[in-house]
């Protein structure tokens, strides 16, 4: 991914701020055409990813950096488009193929985050960053082609009028 993200947020690894990240992601997803329930699920996937970084990557240290980047994904005849979200950190590295969901038939507390992320999102890729940290790339496809917000909607929400159709990623 070479193109600049349309949104990039840096936060510290303090669970207090999970709510802000969720609201941002849900709000952007809504503007990109996702239904309310899907927006909530996308926010859940991001929340779970952040929780995993905080708990396992940073061992609950609350002052370490996490970056969330967001791109809209254009649709075409073969694909409905959607949203791409990348979460990066400077946390302890793990082998990407070791990041797996657990057996859900074993009902016990914990270990559900990776399952939820994979269940909600259409594409999920874990990678090691260079030289430190991990990168999680998640894509959710829209149920219908993503369209730029209508002009009347822009008038209602001037803070998001900078959204641009050109330059979207595929």
């Amino acid at each position, binding site marked *: 991914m070479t193109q600049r993200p349309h949104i990039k947020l840096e936060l510290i690894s303090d669970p207090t701020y*999970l709510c802000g990240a969720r609201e941002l992601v849900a709000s952007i997803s809504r503007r990109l055409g996702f239904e309310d329930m899907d927006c*909530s*699920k996308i926010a859940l996937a991001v929340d*779970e990813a952040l929780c995993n970084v905080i708990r396992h990557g940073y061992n609950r240290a609350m002052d370490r950096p996490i970056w969330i980047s967001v791109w809209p994904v254009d649709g075409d005849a073969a694909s409905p488009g959607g949203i791409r979200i990348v979460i990066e950190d400077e946390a302890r590295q793990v082998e990407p193929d070791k990041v797996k969901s657990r057996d*859900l038939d074993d009902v016990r507390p*914990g270990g559900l985050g990776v399952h*939820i992320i994979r*269940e909600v999102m259409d594409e999920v890729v874990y990678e090691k960053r260079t030289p430190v940290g991990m990168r999680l790339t998640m894509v959710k496809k829209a149920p219908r082609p993503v369209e730029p917000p209508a002009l009347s909607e822009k008038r209602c929400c001037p803070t998001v009028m900078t959204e641009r159709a050109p330059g979207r990623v595929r």
Partner: protein
Amino acid sequence: MPESDAIVEVHSPRTGIMVVAPKSDVDLSRSPELRQALREASDRRPDRLIVDLAEVGYMDSSGLATLVEAMRTAKSTGAPLILASMNQKVRAIFEIARLDQFFTIVDSVDAALSV
């Protein structure tokens, strides 16, 4: 913190029944308070423990883990744990985690009282 600002309220509408009611979203920053409230309610050895989720608009897997832990404790003590007034978004999270069949889920606290 004044009592009215409590993140989780606990009350007993009837003898032997404890109702634990989170007053906000339950995520990694808030699930410890819910866990503590559930433990304290369970320590009072109720006949039935009801978790009123009417004011929970969002829950993540830390909240699910907290409720699974409470359910395990409830099973060990023989006191049913019932989840009440869960909204559709929270219910979807239970379904994604395939925990909707593990819990008794009812529409309201009144329904939980009559189960």
